[in-house]
């Protein structure tokens, strides 16, 4: 039954999030953009109060009913993903870089949730409900591989004597890697192969905890935008982790079945909508600021004018608004399908591909429409343009996601459509 209304529970939470976005995030956006690599303590401390509580309750629930804690007792759709993406959108409307610093297991946690055992959840997730702020991260990309995750070179060798995995290799572009492994007692899920010759089938994910010897942060990137979120390279030099830190089964499936790899990839069906949501948050911020500033000049869109009687700026604003709405609806759809337990592989890639592009276009247009001031650092528009672009790139570039969409609609394998 077609319905565009958000659950009231979520609406209320969004109002809270908006307050945080306005009063904490916007207030410190410029500061942390200028002081790159500094952690946004105001936001982190404020959020940790909330997140810790939620994680604690969520964890207890999970332990209680053995589920991952999202699934409510009653039947029917599970709106936690909808809640997630609407919150992500609102927090990214506040500051997309700061949102990434939310103290939370995030992607890493999602992976552990998805395939982790009860014991693993106790070991790795319990702590996110107590003590100091902590972060989770996920290490996948390697210098050679880019979006080609099947070409990973990082190895996990089993040392049966000590019943440990020995990790060796380098990972790059790890969001929150520093927060997770250096600045908190967090976790990082690392993708590595237990059999370099097995291709996708050999790839497993492993949980690396903060303070693991042999794990070093090789480099922290200076970026175009989202500067208060750290992006690092990790080097694993005979880094030893307990045998039980592997997520999912250790045995290598035959080439045919690549379930292990697919399982790991599934994490992204949830994270792509989240990235799309973040993109749309930035887009909405830029759209609203532009509307606001032009209104101050007495320029408000007259929606009753036919296309040919509009002013150029008016049409620009309507185009921005249309794209922002379209991108957001695609994102909602990807989330709703997930909520209904349907596969959202197609809709998630559609949303990600389009949202990243839209955020890029809308923010770039905002910097134009806001004139010299829009290009200056007096407003946040120029920052949002820099922030927005990441959504066109990470979690699979627009091209990669378009490729996934194409394969899905054509029913093609990666061999048929390279």
């Amino acid at each position: 039954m077609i319905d565009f209304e958000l659950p009231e529970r979520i609406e209320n939470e969004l109002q809270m999030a908006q307050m945080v976005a306005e009063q904490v995030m916007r207030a410190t956006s410029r500061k942390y953009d200028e002081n790159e690599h500094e952690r946004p303590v105001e936001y982190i401390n404020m959020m940790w109060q909330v997140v810790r509580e939620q994680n604690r309750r969520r964890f207890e629930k999970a332990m209680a009913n053995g589920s991952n804690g999202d699934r409510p007792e009653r039947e029917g759709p599970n709106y936690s993903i909808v809640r997630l993406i609407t919150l992500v959108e609102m927090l990214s409307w506040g500051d997309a870089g700061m949102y990434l610093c939310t103290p939370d297991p995030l992607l890493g946690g999602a992976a552990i949730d998805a395939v982790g055992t009860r014991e693993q959840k106790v070991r790795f997730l319990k702590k996110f409900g107590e003590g100091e702020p902590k972060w989770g991260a996920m290490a996948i990309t390697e210098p050679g591989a880019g979006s080609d995750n099947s070409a990973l070179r990082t190895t996990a060798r089993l040392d049966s004597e000590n019943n440990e995995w020995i990790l060796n290799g380098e990972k790059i572009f790890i969001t929150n890697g520093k927060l997770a492994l250096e600045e908190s007692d967090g976790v990082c899920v690392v993708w590595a192969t237990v059999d370099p010759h097995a291709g996708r089938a050999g790839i497993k994910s492993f949980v690396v905890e903060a303070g693991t010897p042999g794990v070093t942060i090789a480099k922290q990137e200076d970026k175009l935008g989202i500067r208060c979120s750290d992006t690092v390279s990790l080097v694993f030099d005979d880094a030893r982790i307990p045998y039980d830190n592997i997520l999912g089964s250790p045995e290598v499936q035959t080439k045919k079945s690549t379930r292990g790899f697919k399982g790991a990839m599934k994490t992204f069906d949830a994270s792509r909508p989240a990235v799309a949501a973040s993109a749309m948050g930035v887009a909405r911020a830029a759209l609203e600021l532009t509307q606001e500033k032009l209104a101050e000049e007495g320029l408000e869109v007259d929606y009753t004018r036919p296309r040919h009687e509009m002013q150029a700026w008016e049409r620009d604003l309507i185009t921005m608004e249309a794209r922002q709405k379209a991108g957001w609806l695609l994102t909602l759809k990807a989330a709703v399908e997930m909520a209904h337990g349907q596969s959202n592989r197609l809709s998630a890639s559609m949303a990600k591909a389009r949202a990243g592009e839209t955020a890029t276009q809308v923010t770039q247009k905002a910097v134009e429409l806001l004139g010299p001031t829009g290009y200056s650092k007096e407003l946040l528009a120029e920052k949002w343009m820099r922030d927005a672009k990441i959504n066109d790139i990470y979690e699979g570039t627009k091209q990669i996601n378009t490729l996934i969409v194409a394969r899905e609609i054509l029913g093609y394998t990666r061999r048929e459509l390279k």
Partner: protein
Amino acid sequence: MLDFTLDQEQEMLATIIGRFAEERVRPVFREAEERGAVPAEVIQAGWELGLLPTSLPAAYGGLGDYSVVTAAIAVEAFAWGDLATTFQILAPNLVAVPLLLEGSQAQQTRYLPDFTTARRPPAVTAALIEPGIRFNPRALKATATIEGDGYRLNGAKTMVPLAEDAELLLVYAAEAGETQAFLVPGDAEGLTVGPEAEVMGLGALPLYRLHLENVYVPAVDRLGGEEGSDFARLLNHSRVALAAAAVGVARAGYEYAREYAKQRVQFGEPIAHRQSIAFMLAEMAIDIEAARLLVWEAAWKLDRGEEITREATVMKHYVDDVVLQTADRAVQILGGYGYIREYPVELWLRNARGFVHFDGLAIV
């Protein structure tokens, strides 16, 4: 609560109309376009699906479940088959829906029952579009001036579907600068129909010029009677209908191009194996998905009685572009075959370009 899935009734409707479009419309629409007329039996069959009666109030013999969302789903399914056929099948809406939304009690009682009982599609139409290069439905050139206890209509209209045989027309004109609608019998004095208005697309739909010279309309025949009607509301309902139709046309082009690209072998492989083609198809799929969601949201808001002028404008802006670009890409993917009339896509391109000009040609 947030949900983008059709309910059972909608699923069923989409299936029925989809089958109708595929089995009754697709086999004949190309010839209809060349001949300039849709076979009467197809229109009749479309009417017998009974969509309009279903949505009219029980008081007038209908089933009273009027839903713009459901209607949008239906229109997309029809338009996937053929746009000209869709406009003709939906022509009775052009009078019935405005009556339902804005008609006075008296007008509804007088006219609506015919729409639920009629065996054949009622011969009615509406006249909104005007000739010229800067048409604005909110600032019409045709005028309605008060005379005695009625109005005199003057002006010119164009692209009026089926006007020649229309027994009743809903004519839009500016009353003191504000658009109002008037119920005018086909044989009204001063009303001249013709010549045909030839346009790039819609070949199968007879469109006419209309000339209004001092056409007298009793006050009671102004839509809404005393109060008159809220044109903005009617326009929004029309735009949702047209946008839904646009999604149908776009989907037709997308699906045809997709299947063609999978069959068509060049340089030893189906052309769909090439990213340049595959990515175009992906963009088309994403555009259509987004357009449909925009249409559904606007329709959903109308069902909740919201004022959606802003949403309708934004939606139209987006969807008009999507349908044009998608149809154009379909032609591109078919290459030479996209350019010849033996294949359907060139017609979809001609129709697609029209949506920026179709205000008032359909309403739900």
